[in-house]
């Protein structure tokens, strides 16, 4: 009895440690964003006075609203493009037996393990060649490289677990492949589409290396780059308050989004996954 109690207490303590470890940095960012000047270097855990000046300053001193808009456009385009490409691809890879299918799937997996910097110079040439340097569309195209492997794999696994009888029924009723895709399969895949779409959105929203390299003006920057390049009045000053306020502004909606859809994300991702 006592042993069980100790075990439960130890387990509880472990959970608390892990939660604090995971959540504290974000909490500290929020606290720091509410402090200005010398108070920033105060290490008390609770914010004394609440000062929203940093939030005002972030939007006044640089085109931060524009940066958020850019990020929304880029991430939204990335999600739409990757779902539009991955959904038909998953039908082909999950349903139709053709030569080299397995190789193709593992090719996708290999791409997802690729270090981004290894394709940076090649990507630069492509972006420049297409005339998309310093354009949002260029960034969205680059992000497909990051999002497509995940979306294709998850959707393919999901597609395989859908019962074949449904599409056979549709085919018997004379549906064309496109109609089948649009009217029958897409609604069935909705949970998987939502889950992978959200993950693709987050990946595109957070991406840094391509965004840093392929944009040059502050009007085309996305949020992560804009935050990294926030600078103070002099080169020796780093305005931590502004940096933290900007980070919290763009992270909070994302955290809320994931918390709301948490169960759906897990369900959508595991629905077709690893059942060897």
């Amino acid at each position, binding site marked *: 009895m006592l042993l069980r109690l100790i075990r439960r207490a130890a387990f509880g303590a472990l959970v608390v440690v892990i939660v604090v470890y995971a959540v504290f940095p974000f909490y500290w960012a929020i606290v720091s964003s509410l402090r200005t000047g010398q108070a920033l270097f105060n290490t008390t855990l609770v914010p004394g006075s609440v000062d929203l000046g940093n939030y005002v300053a972030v939007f006044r001193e640089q085109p931060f609203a524009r940066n958020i808009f850019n990020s929304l456009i880029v991430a939204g385009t990335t999600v739409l493009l990757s779902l539009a490409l991955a959904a038909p691809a998953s039908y082909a890879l999950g349903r139709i037996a053709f030569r080299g299918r*397995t190789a193709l*799937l*593992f090719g996708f*997996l290999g791409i997802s*393990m*690729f*270090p*981004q*910097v*290894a394709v*940076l*110079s090649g990507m630069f040439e492509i972006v420049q060649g297409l005339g998309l340097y310093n354009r949002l569309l260029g960034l969205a195209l680059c992000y497909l490289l990051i999002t497509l492997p995940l979306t294709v794999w998850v959707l393919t696994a999901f597609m395989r677990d859908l019962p074949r009888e449904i599409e056979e029924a549709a085919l018997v009723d004379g549906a064309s492949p496109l109609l089948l895709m649009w009217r029958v399969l897409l609604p069935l895949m909705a949970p998987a589409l939502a889950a992978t779409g959200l993950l693709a959105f987050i990946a595109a929203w957070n991406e*840094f*290396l391509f965004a*840093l*390299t392929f944009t040059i003006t502050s009007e085309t920057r996305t949020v*992560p780059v804009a935050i*990294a390049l926030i600078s103070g009045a002099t080169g020796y000053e780093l305005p931590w308050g502004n940096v933290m306020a900007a980070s919290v502004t763009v992270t909070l909606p994302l955290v809320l989004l994931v918390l709301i859809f948490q169960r759906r994300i897990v369900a959508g991702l595991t629905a077709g996954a*690893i*059942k*060897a």
Partner: protein
Amino acid sequence: MKPALAVAAIFRTLDAMRIFDLVYVLTGSNRETMTMAVYARQQLIDFQDFGAGSAASTLLFLVIAMVTAIFATTARLRLSERGVLAG
């Protein structure tokens, strides 16, 4: 469990080896903390030295590929389409 653990270990190791954004934002081009990816980008973009930069990024790719191969062979992983990786 083993295949799942091995896959997790491989993915996390690869992610750690190609890390760029955290290091770049926190310490910039400090030589003491520079990772392979930060070095490659510095050569490529900041110094406009496409030869050295491409060489560095190709080496980074080879290092990562080698580590993956070592991992996969020591854990005796077999690739299977259905379970991705099976022990």
